[in-house]
């Protein structure tokens, strides 16, 4: 019985460590190594394998779940990463904090393949530190089985018929963005009156919300747990592939456009190799293989005619020009983020 007791104490102690910590891999210097720190499933594994073989290098691929997680690791220094994929607003923040290397464009001749719309994004004008990799628009996804009639406006989320079936992204800027855009304001306002108005509006939506979710929003839409909600265009394409009843629309008031980029953190040990990899990814044929696997929109203009008919015809992947014209980038709001966060906390306080 003694043995059992000590075993039990061990089990309790082990269970106390509920949180798991991720570790990064270290690099061996003999062969050239490229250390990537990115989102999950953000590359076709075959594309990485091809690159490894072609240039006789080794690629390590670590993943993060949020921009802030990545920022914390890069800020701590000596992360050992050569290539990261911050989103738009995070690029701006990291440039201001001096955490990104300038890209040497001489090593990235394929840069010219990027569609002109993404050559001068407001978060990094002139693409000095970053290049757009994947992008999309946060619009409304809805299930035709339950949602009758045409969906055109953010106001449709407030329809009492969908009470308890509305899903929202679990992200303060995205959700506040919906409230702000619906009321005709900028999604990155610093005006307290506008924020307050957007919040008051969103508060009336809360009783309809079934859940806030980013990581598993796809499953909730596929399983018809939620009927309507705010979904990224690329995610909508994936949902639609599994559940063809789910449609997607960019509301008439406008929406938030976002991008994940390719960037190099300050002090990266293999900067040149990272640039070589970026250039490789922007090769038209490579990008076709890569993006059809990821299922997100390819910003590579030269690759367009090479894509399959099915991929090109998908409206959730290739958004209309008019939809894009209405979309607005999120911009870092500096100290006002505290206001956003307080409203977010209040929305989630369950009252």
């Amino acid at each position, binding site marked *: 019985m003694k043995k059992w007791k000590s075993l039990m104490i061990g089990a309790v102690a082990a269970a*106390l460590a509920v949180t798991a910590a991720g570790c990064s891999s270290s690099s061996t210097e003999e062969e050239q190594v490229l250390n990537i720190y990115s989102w999950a499933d953000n590359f076709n594994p075959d594309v990485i394998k091809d690159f490894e073989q072609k240039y006789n290098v080794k690629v390590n691929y670590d993943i993060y779940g949020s921009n802030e997680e990545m920022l914390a690791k890069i800020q701590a220094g000596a992360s050992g990463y050569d290539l990261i994929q911050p989103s738009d607003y995070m690029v701006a923040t990291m440039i201001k904090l001096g955490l990104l290397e300038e890209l040497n464009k001489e090593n990235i001749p394929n840069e010219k393949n990027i569609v002109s719309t993404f050559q001068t994004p407001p978060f990094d004008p002139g693409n000095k530190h970053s290049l757009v990799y994947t992008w999309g628009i946060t619009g409304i996804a809805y299930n035709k089985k339950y949602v009758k009639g045409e969906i055109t406006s953010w106001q449709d989320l407030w329809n009492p018929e969908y009470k*308890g079936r509305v899903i929202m992204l679990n*992200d303060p800027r995205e959700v506040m963005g919906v409230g702000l855009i619906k009321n005709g304001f900028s999604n990155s306002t610093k005006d307290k009156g506008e924020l307050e108005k957007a919040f008051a509006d969103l508060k009336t939506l809360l009783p309809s919300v079934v859940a806030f979710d980013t990581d598993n929003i796809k499953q909730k839409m596929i399983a018809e747990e939620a009927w309507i909600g705010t979904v990224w265009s690329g995610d909508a394409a994936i949902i639609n592939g599994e559940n063809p009843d789910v449609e997607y629309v960019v509301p008439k008031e406008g929406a938030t456009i976002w991008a994940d980029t390719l960037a190099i953190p300050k002090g990266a040990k293999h900067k040149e190799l990272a640039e070589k990899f970026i250039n490789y990814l922007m090769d038209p044929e490579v990008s076709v293989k890569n993006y059809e696997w990821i299922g997100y929109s390819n910003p590579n203009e030269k690759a367009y005619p090479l894509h399959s008919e099915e991929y090109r015809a998908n409206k959730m992947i290739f958004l209309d020009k008019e939809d894009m014209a209405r979309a607005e980038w999120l911009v870092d709001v500096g100290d006002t*983020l505290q206001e956003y966060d307080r409203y977010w*906390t209040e929305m*989630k*306080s369950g009252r």
Partner: protein
Amino acid sequence: MVAGRRGDAHLKNGKQLKILALPAFVWLGALFVLPMLMITALSFMKRGTYGQVVYEFTLNNYARMIDPLYIQIFFDTFLVAVLTTAISLVCAYPMAYYISRMDRSAQKIWLLLVMIPFWINFLVRSYAWVIILRSQGVINTFLLSTGLIQEPLPLLYNFGSVMVGMVYTLLPFMVLPIYVSLEQLDRRKLEAAYDLGATPWKTFWHVTLPLTKSGVITGSILVFVSSIGMFVVPDVMGGAKSALMGNVIQNQFLSARDWPFGSALSIVLMLLSMVLIYLYYRAVNAAEAKEGTA
């Protein structure tokens, strides 16, 4: 017990005992005390415009907490923690009692069953609950097919599902310590009580319960402390709709990029839990003292 103590006597003189404590001491010093001090220091710093930490002294992070919003969330957090502890205690005690009364081989099997959930990652088990409770989930599909209900029941993403998840996750922490104290219980004392004419209920109330007090206290503190910092269950099973303090703190370190405020919230949460645990400890002891004089 007495014999054991006498056997250890030769170790008591001098450095040998200290050496025994050294590994744990170093471990806690490096991995608990140091981070603790850093969090405390951080809680008096400022947030820079872009979320960096500015090393200037301020009390503002604590002043910001004097806001009905945060006070309410502190209150909700403690309410959920107290409820979780109480429900766990009520469920765990009879179960531990039952296990302690079985023969040795059956006990081993039952204890194994209590511990088996730990072999599977906690997050995975939470998602398993989602599959069971969601509107196209196991329960609703079954009830719909039997014709008992016409519309799926809203079993998920509410206060009830959060409580189910909390108690499910933390119940073993209550069962195991209570079981250990019941197992150590000197049965002769129970026989003495019966011999003196006490009813089973009276025996339980005046003999068994006071003698297993240490298990109840240990279990309660383990469950209470774990539920105070919980953020996975409200997110996954509550639909991230009613944030507990754990969620608010997590948010400060992620989307709000306000580490100083997050640190200050952590410190206050910790101090408040310590006060509550102390009060609980005192209340249990006071009840026992009263019991002694009665």
